[in-house]
């Protein structure tokens, strides 16, 4: 009685953008059939996509050409057959080919089993190859799980970026809003405003070093967090000139500044 040895070897299967390893060797010999399967559970395809299977048939029957019927089936986890097809394949010594199975469109997601049977001379060869794979629907070209994973990551990143941007804008606005010195006597207020605005402008350009430079000027007392001028105890013009000089040193160029308008008509 003839029998076949059917084994699977590891080959590359490209499916749904994934490169996966799958095995399939068929061999034929006189007595005793052997079947080796490689579980390729990592294979994932979407309904409607092609599941490629690399098949190798070997005939150890003395080089005589034989025709075998190869049947391909897919079974659900509950054992329900959802796909079946077959083809006759001639094997002289070996026959290698790629068989593609289109996954039915309407099939539900889950783990499935692909099984291959070989029928020779009207008899089922006592050898079956099989491997499991996963069917999963796609959303916008991504498998559903991947879609939710990447979508979640993207959404989370977006929220973080938005929150960060919002915080930075708020902080920047806070820094660039001129500080109020209406409580300072009118004749001294202009000095407070020039100093405060110059510190603020320089903070935009050189960062918190602008606060350090201002805080180290004799006769000038500022809030080291906000840059608000608390007190000027020496000649204010001299302090402004010293501050501008300090900023020019760190910036390496001359510094422009503006004066606030006392009223809209000026």
């Amino acid at each position, binding site marked *: 009685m003839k029998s076949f040895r059917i084994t699977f070897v590891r080959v590359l299967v490209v499916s749904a953008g994934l490169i996966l390893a799958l095995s399939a060797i068929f061999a034929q010999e006189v007595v005793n059939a052997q079947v080796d399967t490689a579980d390729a559970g990592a294979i994932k395809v979407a309904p409607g996509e092609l599941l490629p299977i690399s098949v190798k048939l070997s005939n150890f029957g003395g080089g005589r050409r034989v025709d075998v019927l190869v049947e391909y089936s897919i079974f659900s986890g509950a054992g329900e057959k959802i796909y079946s097809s077959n083809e006759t394949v001639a094997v002289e010594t070996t026959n290698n080919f790629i068989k593609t199975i289109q996954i039915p469109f309407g099939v539900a997601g889950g783990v499935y089993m692909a099984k291959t049977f070989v029928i020779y001379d009207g008899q089922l060869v006592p050898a079956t190859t099989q491997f499991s794979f996963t069917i999963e629907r796609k959303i916008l070209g991504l498998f559903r799980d991947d879609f939710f994973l990447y979508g979640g990551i993207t959404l989370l990143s977006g929220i973080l970026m938005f929150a960060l941007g919002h915080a930075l804008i708020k902080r920047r606005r806070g820094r660039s809003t001129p500080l109020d010195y209406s409580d300072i006597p009118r004749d001294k207020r202009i000095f407070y405003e020039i100093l405060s605005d110059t510190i603020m402008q320089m903070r935009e350009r050189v960062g918190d070093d602008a606060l350090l430079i201002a805080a180290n000027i004799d006769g000038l007392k500022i809030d080291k967090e906000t840059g608000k001028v608390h007190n000027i105890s020496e000649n204010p*013009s001299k302090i*402004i*000139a010293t501050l*501008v000089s300090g900023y020019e040193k760190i910036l390496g160029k*001359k*510094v*422009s500044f*503006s*004066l606030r308008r006392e009223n*809209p008509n000026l």
Partner: protein
Amino acid sequence: MPQKTILVVEDEESLREAIVDILRLKNFLSFEAKDGEEAVELALSKHPDLILLDLLMPVMDGMTALKKIREDSWGEKVPVVILTNLSATNEQLVEDMVTHKPMHYLIKSDWKLHDVVKKIEEILEMRK
């Protein structure tokens, strides 16, 4: 709407002409002065809407010219933008600035002419 007038006070001819050209493109009418003395004369006779003033100039420097302009009842309110290469690290200069109140003290090397003109437009827009 009447055309806004700008007095451009700058001793460097090429820079003065460049400023006037840009102002013309922006539909401003410009008067040109090459020193402080001309600036005072033109300012008090033409009453421009804004003065763009250099500081270091021959005959009369910009701060002296500004002081004279501010002594006039019209001149005490005219907006002035200083455009200079002189660094404001001198105590007397700061004192003069505070006294005569230009709106901006702009360093030439720090500003593109188009941005200077934008400042001018902002000031005149606020005064409408």
